[in-house]
């Protein structure tokens, strides 16, 4: 079996705030293989972004603390890396694309300055690039994300570009400093339908072209379906289900995944499912046991005090729900 590119083991992230500790991540396990496209879905506030920021060590600590867990990138724990090693990872291995391209680009510098700095500090350290070399590389990546008139874009400020173009710039910056893994934190949410489509297609093409892995975070299940091979479903800081994308959409197992899928309006019409009652729990005092149990329609007494581990339902399908603790093949059709 090949070694995973990125492996998160039992990650806990807490935030110290007035009035207590927010236990946001509660033992997250997560694996990305080389050249794999992984999706991570869940409602707003379920801890998706926190997980990804933890990977990049972008959480400001304090208030964040990581009491437990490790994040292994090619076997090495990112959380225990020194500054130089971390810088190395950020420079050339992993990069992140943010949800809102407007906020993710420094508003007072030109696109050129920002991309060229990303280029300058990327790649093999030690060798200093020449100015025109840097510029050429910047132009090249801009071309790669199909931005027309790269010369002009370099001289533009973020404000002068449209949302779609800004996101393309963000993608190009991520491309520059990520040879192995790109983390897309809902890169499409703030965009319009047609642009969304374009950006996602672009991302997919690039990832396939460069043989990069990608983690795509989204609350839009449709997006994930088209883009990924494997999907993790997250709820309130825990992974509740993981499966091949096709399997998940065909046979969701966890009541939460089921509810989520049912709530999506279909193009075929015929009304919308019921949705899920209630909302994500407060992290100061999360429910004991399965964090989903207060909203779950199939709740059992044991859910209330025991946290369900991931049960393997099939080769590539795991679910954290006591309904599946005594796995039988028939569950899939249920």
């Amino acid at each position, binding site marked *: 079996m090949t070694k995973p590119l990125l492996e998160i083991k039992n990650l806990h992230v807490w935030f110290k705030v007035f009035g207590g500790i927010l236990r946001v991540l509660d033992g997250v396990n997560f694996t990305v293989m080389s050249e794999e496209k992984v999706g991570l879905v869940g*409602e*707003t506030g379920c801890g998706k972004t926190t997980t990804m920021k933890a990977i990049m060590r972008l959480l400001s600590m304090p208030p964040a603390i990581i009491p437990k867990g490790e994040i292994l990138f090619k076997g090495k724990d990112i959380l225990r890396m020194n500054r130089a090693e971390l810088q190395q990872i950020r420079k050339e291995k992993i990069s992140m694309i943010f949800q809102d391209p407007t906020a993710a680009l420094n508003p007072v510098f030109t696109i050129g300055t920002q991309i060229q700095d990303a280029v300058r500090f990327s790649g093999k350290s030690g060798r200093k690039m020449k100015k025109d070399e840097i510029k050429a590389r910047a132009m090249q990546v801009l071309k790669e994300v199909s931005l027309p008139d790269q010369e002009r874009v370099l001289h533009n400020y973020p404000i002068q570009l*449209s*949302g*779609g*173009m800004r996101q393309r710039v963000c993608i190009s910056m991520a491309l520059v400093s990520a040879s192995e893994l790109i983390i897309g934190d809902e890169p499409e949410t703030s965009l*319009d*339908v*047609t*642009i*969304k*489509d*374009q950006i*996602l*297609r672009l991302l997919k093409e690039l990832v396939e072209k460069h043989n990069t892995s990608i983690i795509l975070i989204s*609350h*839009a*299940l*449709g*997006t994930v*379906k*088209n883009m990924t091979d494997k999907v993790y479903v997250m709820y309130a800081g825990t992974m509740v289900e993981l499966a091949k994308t096709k399997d998940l*959409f065909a046979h969701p197992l966890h009541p939460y995944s089921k*509810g*989520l*899928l*049912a*709530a*999506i*309006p*279909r*193009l*075929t*019409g*015929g*009304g*919308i*499912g*019921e*949705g*899920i*009652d209630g*909302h994500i729990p407060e992290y100061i005092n999360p429910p004991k046991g399965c964090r989903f149990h207060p909203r779950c329609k199939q709740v059992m007494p044991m859910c209330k005090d025991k946290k369900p581990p991931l049960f393997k339902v099939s080769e590539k399908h795991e679910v954290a729900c006591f309904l599946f603790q005594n796995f039988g093949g028939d569950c899939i059709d249920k």
Partner: protein
Amino acid sequence: MRLPVFYFRILEVIALTNNILFVDHLEKYFFTYQGIVKAVDGISFFIKEGETFGLVGESGSGKSTVAYTVVGMYRPTKGKIIYKGDKDISQDSRKRPLAIKKEIQIVYQDPGTSLNPSMTIKDILELPLKVHNISKNHEDRIKKVKELLEMVQLPVSYTYKYPSMIGGGEKQMVAIARALATNPSFVLLDEPTSALDVSVQAKLINMLIQFQKKFKLSYLFITHDLSLMRNVASRVAIMYLGKLCEIAPSSEFFKNPLHPYTQMLLSSIPVISDEEEALKPKKIISKGEIPSPVNIPPGCSFHFRCHKKMDICSCEDPIITEVNEGHTVRCHLYTK
């Protein structure tokens, strides 16, 4: 005399059916330092009583402006808005009679900004009751506020909470309760669920459909989400840069999209099942972005993103044509 065929057709419809709203050649321009923004540029449509009329478009297409103009936040630059067949309400809210204000209500896109953060839920819900003299005294109003909260399935204990203390979905419920407080007959829903998670959206939409039946409401439903539109609207209109591209009954619309823009939109939707995939027009790759409404391209404003562009498109604006019964489209492909 631009649209003779359609125009007479509309008049006919007015004469025959019970329209709650008729928008006739509505124009709304904004004069800014960059130039004139033609947010709404001569659109006409009607909404039948009890139906949900869907208005779809990308951001910047002017769909919200239509809603705001109808509800009276803006005065139309040109054109007429006729309510219930005979009441001309083409004024802004200051001049609009109170009785009309009571009839037409709106739910905004972002519940975070449509509820006053410094007021309690009670204060917010009380306002329409006070203004329209629905409840006589204080106790009565409190009672009514609690009824409203129960109606949208919120706990009565929310009465004295501030909007910042409750979740986004719940805020939107409050906004709906506020809109329904005056017993309106026509409600504008301006992307009511776009800021919400799907699980919450489902609940909210179902509730809206339920209220529609219960109170015999007519909806103007605005969204950019076509899948959602398929499930709520009985007729759908597509808007692009201030103009309507296509209007059709829902089922027809999704089965047989005519306008290239509609086709492009449909093909861009991410879907989760194969049945849906089958519905999407194939091999239309979306390209370009909606341009700034300050410099609208000449001719058909969509022409340079269009995959079926013809020579005529870049110089002449197409007129609306009725292709099938109730299915109109504004494209040179369908003009004879």
